[in-house]
């Protein structure tokens, strides 16, 4: 399996990822798919500096990331894939990235978002993207850290949120 973890987390590269999941899964590569950060060398340097030296890190646009994942499948690298939003993860799947299961790890409160779980706040755009992932056959669940509670995210949960928004 190439993708050790595909995670949606608006903090992107941070302690829960590098220390929590990183120590548990020991990926070869942390791949952050984010158009804005990939296009800004300064931001990319800041985020890359958070990754321990034993794990490689690449920060690429969403389109480049889809291609990079295809290459990783060939080479057998174990990848911890990150996006900052459900929309970017859904776009990766649309572009053909081999993603079967997605971990919703952290979407924090912002104006216009409603609480789905204590660590997951969503707006309509997020719901549409999560629904697209489900419809594409991708499994979803929400879990912050290894060993933490794993919450199901399915049609029932998304419909409940649609009623709230």
């Amino acid at each position, binding site marked *: 399996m190439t993708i050790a973890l595909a995670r949606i987390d608006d903090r992107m590269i941070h302690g829960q990822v590098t220390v929590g999941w990183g120590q548990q899964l020991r990926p070869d590569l942390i791949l952050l798919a984010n158009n804005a950060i990939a296009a800004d060398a300064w931001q990319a340097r800041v985020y890359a500096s*958070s990754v321990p030296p034993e794990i490689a890190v690449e920060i690429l646009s969403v389109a480049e990331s889809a291609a990079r994942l295809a290459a990783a499948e060939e080479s057998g690298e174990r990848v911890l894939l990150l996006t900052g939003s459900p929309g970017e993860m859904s776009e990766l799947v649309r572009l053909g990235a081999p993603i079967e299961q997605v971990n919703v790890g952290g979407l924090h409160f912002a104006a216009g978002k409603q609480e789905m779980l204590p660590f997951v706040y969503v707006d309509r755009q997020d719901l549409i993207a999560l629904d697209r992932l489900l419809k594409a056959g991708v499994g979803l669940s929400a879990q912050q850290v290894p060993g933490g509670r794993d919450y199901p995210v399915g049609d029932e949960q998304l419909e409940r949120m649609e009623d709230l928004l």
Partner: protein
Amino acid sequence: MTRGYVITHGAIGEELVRVATLILGPQVGLEAASNAGRSAQDITAGIAEWLAAGREPALIMIDDYGGSCANAAQLACGDRSDTAIVSGVNLAMILGFLTWRETHELEELSQRIVDKGREAIVRLGGR
């Protein structure tokens, strides 16, 4: 006088500042914040807002290098020359900050605080 902002996981920073004031008395120009429940964007915006609210040089103290607070502090400071960031904040560093912030320029102050924080970590007895 250099301003200070302690941003950490959980309530570590708020407690460090509270305890420092129990030792040295009430302080101005020293604030604490938590990353709890906040997006990277929100943490960065909070630091940027605090930076913009004053004119004095600013020292940002974070708990863990390589976490959301570290990322946010670096992104909020950008290439400003009147700010410094140190990680690994502990009580000795806060006390050092409050003791030296009027007498030392930012660069020397931040280095002294890093040295002070390291000096505070020692083995005391036991095996």
